[in-house]
């Protein structure tokens, strides 16, 4: 047996690549989950014929559109912060995290502002397949936003202490990947559920 003298990459780089591969697989898995939900939506909609079904009012579009912008902007801010920290502009990550957390929370608040009036007006999860799709998809997504917020929140103390000085540590990078994924899902969901 032979010892292998040295690895070709610094150790940190190696383990970061490994986590990256893992996260890509996990997100592929998640994509299939949301893909299956969208598939379900497509089948139900094809079967329904008229959409929205007769007697159901069309969904509001303005607030969800604003919400799309909110999430896109949050992704942008997070990405910028992570890069800036990587370029040794210390503190940029903390600012970006705060901005993302604020925007993410704003997204959830605006979601509530969409749901509550609809629910009050009698459009509920049990009022036919339209309601099931709407609440099922958007609430399930909102839970992912919540999970993403928790993941980012966990990073805040470290960012404050400057622990992610290189800005590219695994935890930051993976949480950011998840956040971008959740945002991308929302864009598809906005187009599929509200626009089409």
């Amino acid at each position: 047996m032979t010892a292998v003298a040295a690895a070709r990459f610094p150790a940190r780089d190696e383990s970061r690549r490994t986590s990256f591969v893992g996260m890509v697989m996990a997100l592929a898995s998640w994509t299939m989950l949301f893909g299956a939900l969208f598939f379900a939506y497509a089948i139900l909609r094809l079967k329904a014929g008229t959409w929205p079904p007769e007697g159901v009012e069309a969904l509001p579009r303005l607030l969800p559109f604003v919400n799309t912008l909110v999430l896109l902007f949050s992704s942008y801010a997070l990405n910028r912060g992570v890069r800036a920290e990587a370029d040794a502009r210390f503190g940029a990550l903390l600012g970006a995290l705060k901005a993302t957390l604020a925007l993410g929370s704003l997204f959830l608040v605006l979601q509530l502002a969409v749901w509550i009036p609809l629910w009050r007006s009698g459009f509920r999860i049990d009022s036919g397949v339209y309601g099931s799709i709407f609440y099922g998809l958007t609430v399930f997504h909102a839970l992912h936003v919540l999970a993403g917020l928790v993941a980012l929140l966990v990073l805040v103390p470290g960012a404050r202490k400057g622990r992610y000085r290189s800005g590219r540590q695994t935890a930051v990078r993976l949480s950011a990947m998840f956040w971008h994924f959740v945002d991308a899902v929302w864009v598809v969901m906005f187009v599929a559920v509200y626009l089409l």
Partner: protein
Amino acid sequence: MADTQARLLYAGPDFHSEQHIHPEPTGFLARYVFSFDHKVIAKQFLWYGLFFLALGGTMAMMIRWQIGNPGTAFPVLGELIWPQSGGVMPPQAYASFFTMHGTLMIFFAITPILIGAFGNLLIPLMIGARDMAFPTLNMLSFWTNVLAGLAMIASFFVPMGAAAGGWQAYPTLSTLVGQPGAGQTLWIVGVFFTGSASIMGAVNYITTVVRLRAPGMGYFRMPLSVWGIWLTAILNALFVPVLAAGVLLLFLDRTFGSHFFLAGASVTKGGGDPILYQHLFWIFGHPEVYILILPAWGIVSDLLSFFSRKPAFGYKATAISMSVISFLSMVVYGHHMFVVGMSPLLSQGFMTLTMLISIPSAVFFLNWLGTMWRGAIRFATPMLFSVGVVFVFGLGGLTGLHLGAISSDIYLHDSYFVVGHFHLTMAASVLLGAFAAIYFWFPKMFGKMMNETLGKWHFWLTIVPITIVFCGMLIVGYGGMQRRLYNDDAYAFLQHLHGVNVWVTRAALLLGASQFLFVVNFLSSMVAGKKASENPWEVGTLEWTVPSPPPHHNFDVIPLVVNGPHEFSHPDVKGKDWLAQNEPLPSDPAALGAVGS
């Protein structure tokens, strides 16, 4: 030869060696319960899977008892479980037993044993890694699975009992319309959690194989066991989420009153589509068949070569065939739905795609036979079980043809023919493959040898009844008997099949009884078995280059791989007939020089 080795040495695809050696934990909890060590987690999964195998198997015995001896009490257990009916299984219990038998066997017996236990044990040891890529995720995967198992067991004790809508849980039977009890909801929770555990495991396995292969361990030098488990992991990561989506929507229908799958009299307006669930279920369900069988295929491909003392015939072709089948499994699911009311065009497309699977299947099947051809075959217990897999899988695979063609499937659909077919492919062959694996790697896991005599008895007393049981089911299936019948005397056209059913039940009981040989062997060998040497089977894959059981960190130094996994009977090797994967040919001074540098 020398050139290739030198190239692999210096430009291996993933030249990754930075795996630290962690000290072995000393506390009981850290060492045996919440362990990060893939070998310990493998044992946890093995015990866990064997427990559910016993539970699911006992349920199978009761199911068969009811069909073979309707209206009589199941010995001993019957009186305990159904005292109010004098020990006779009532039809409601029968429905929930076959439902839970299927669920437990698939998700809580086969998956933990083949994928959980052997996936965990074999991947790092066979590719030359110190542990999995994500040990914490590995531990989480096991304990998430335990939560799922608890939900399943708990469901037996809620009012109205466990889920009773079949293991596929088709709505609307699985919605509140057909299953008002909490058992079905717990079933969903259990399936969702075990699915999450599978995905965690899958992400871990895929990453480990991609990132942590020892230097020189190219993809086409991996043992076929690793190939099988790796492909399974890929299918798991991609398709279990689809099942998760299906049961999630079912959960919403049950608990929040949504209408995804509700239709018919229970809905006044805006109904959903029960068939949608079947699509989601089978998009997952067909890959699932291969998820279950691929590890066994890989293990058998390796063992046939190991015990024939001959390189695996067409190793690359086998690996590629398994990959092609994995891919095809994603696009054929519609053949489960020929009588659902799919459009004729769709049905025909699915039929043709299904038939394509024959080509890669035939290739690796012929390779199995080619491996044994002109070998020097040692019939140790693991080899017997491997040959058994070839035999029963041949039966199971061929009967798939009847079900793949639409006009015979229309008659055979939902009959015992289907039950016989899928048990042969994904129960009998997987079970025999699991036994082969346990007999083979027991020495590596526990450092003791299992008893060969008991093992051989166990083999013959398993293969004979298992063939009778499932071929008997094929026969009553063609005879016209639908699956999931509480008894065969409600219909006049089934009465004449009772004789065959009685024999199936007798063989099943024999099959169940002979498993005690295994239990005795397993437990007694662990305590009093002969001490295993480092390499008792004289094979060359990396796990046999380390002590049995391996140290906590597996490899003192990460091995440098210079051979494929099946270098047997090489003409240049004298004195023994095998080469370890990290052992250069004596006749290859260039390789020796490369290794020395």
